[in-house]
């Protein structure tokens, strides 16, 4: 099992969700996060004074999947979240030791 964590631009969330549904992903968890990468922050203006916003708003998606679906999931996110501009985000893949569905007690790939 794998845990795929993707940081994407917030306005790409719907596209990514649709792409993942299309390949059969059953559930995702979404968090609003802030951070910076190579895009860095940007400056804003308030009453004549400039200020730097270091951390930009992003959306973090977490998806637990069976090993077989990994390549498809990575490809779906990469395609759907891509704008070609700096700040599109990243995908992290980690292996997942265990997964349990709370309602039924199922474990492993049956539960993801």
């Amino acid at each position, binding site marked *: 099992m794998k845990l795929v964590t993707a940081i994407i631009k917030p306005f790409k969330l719907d596209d990514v969700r649709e792409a993942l549904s299309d390949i059969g992903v059953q559930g995702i968890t979404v968090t609003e996060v802030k951070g910076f990468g190579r895009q860095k922050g940007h400056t*804003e*203006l*308030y*009453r*004549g*004074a*400039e*200020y730097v916003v270091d951390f930009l708003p992003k959306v973090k998606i977490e998806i637990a999947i069976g090993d077989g679906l990994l390549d498809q999931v990575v490809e779906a996110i990469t395609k759907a979240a891509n704008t070609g501009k700096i700040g599109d985000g990243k995908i992290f893949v980690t292996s997942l030791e265990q997964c349990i569905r709370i309602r039924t007690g199922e474990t492993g790939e049956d539960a993801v």
Partner: protein
Amino acid sequence: MENNVFHLQYAMDTFYFLVCGALVMWMAAGFAMLEAGLVRSKNTTEILTKNVALFGISCIMYLVCGYAIMYGGNYFLSDIATVDVDSTLKSFAEREDGFTGGAIYSKPSDFFFQVVFVATAMSIVSGAVAERMKLWAFLAFAVVMTAFIYPMEGSWTWGGNAVFGMFTLKDLGFSDFAGSGIVHMAGAAAALAGVLLLGARKGKYGKKGEVNAIPGANLPLATLGTFILWMGWFGFNGGSVLKLGDIGNANSVAMVFLNTNAAAAGGSIAALITARLLFGKADLTMLLNGALAGLVAITAEPSTPSALQATLFGAIGGVLVVFSIVALDKLKIDDPVGAISVHGVCGLLGLLLVPITNTGSSFSGQLIGALTIFVWVFVTSLIVWAVLKAAIGIRVSEEEEYEGVDLAECGMEAYPEFTNKQ
């Protein structure tokens, strides 16, 4: 028959006064929303608490002694309820110019209209000292300001009394129709004294002299507050005509409404364009301050300018307020909502614009009047703030300021999260 007409005129002018007073009362909501929008969310509950409490204090203290100091009469308004119908009708019949003569209206309606002006002056202070002042020190100042400092300068201006028996402002050609100086600049002078002793918010000014932005939490609220103030201002200026009940005065009221609105429009657009030229962006907060600056600038004389003049006077206020806000920041005078610039600088501007259209006033009279009001309010406020600072302190601790005065003073957040215990 004639007596019936007098009854009716009395009723109409009293009713007009009360409606305008209610409009001005609603300005308290405008100040509360404007200030709540321009502070950070961690200081919202406290600024709202201040705004409601200061309104209550203003009403009580003006009732206890403020009105008596300003206009004579008894403390606690003890004689205000009685009306002698026969002698009132007699004064109607005897007044010069008959039906079109001076306004005669109910005494309680006069108090009601005056008391909401005191609260307006006090509301101006709360925005300037926001986010760092102790709640109870502020409320203690509100007691002195509304019971004594404001009524004293009010007695020299609208009350017609001599300044400590030395000179009478009215004789010198001083005229302030609805209170650019008496209400707005006075409030700003008290605010300036407070800010000077209080210091800037932590992090507002860097070590190398840079000005850091501390963005307000809720610009929709600030915008709503500005529109509420704009609406309330029709009562503020319109009611100050004091009479509706004849053709001349009814027309004057209509002209005041028209000019008040025109000045706000001129001020808003002038500030928007100025901000765009200075900063490269259309700064909403400057636009809001510009509308208010236009309103303050026209308040000293909204009845004599033409509609075009009123728009231009407002526009001058709108340009001036942007430069004033930037200049105060350079001087490290931290005013989160721009109250000192809007009400102080543009209040002075309003006073100085009066002689252009009102031949009954003079520049020298306006200057002496402005100086009298400013020096009196600034010096007495400085003393009161200094005494409060020595006695109980006027500033919250650095840690409380960092955590937000909502938690430190009120123990309550404006926008609580993660607190649902079901």
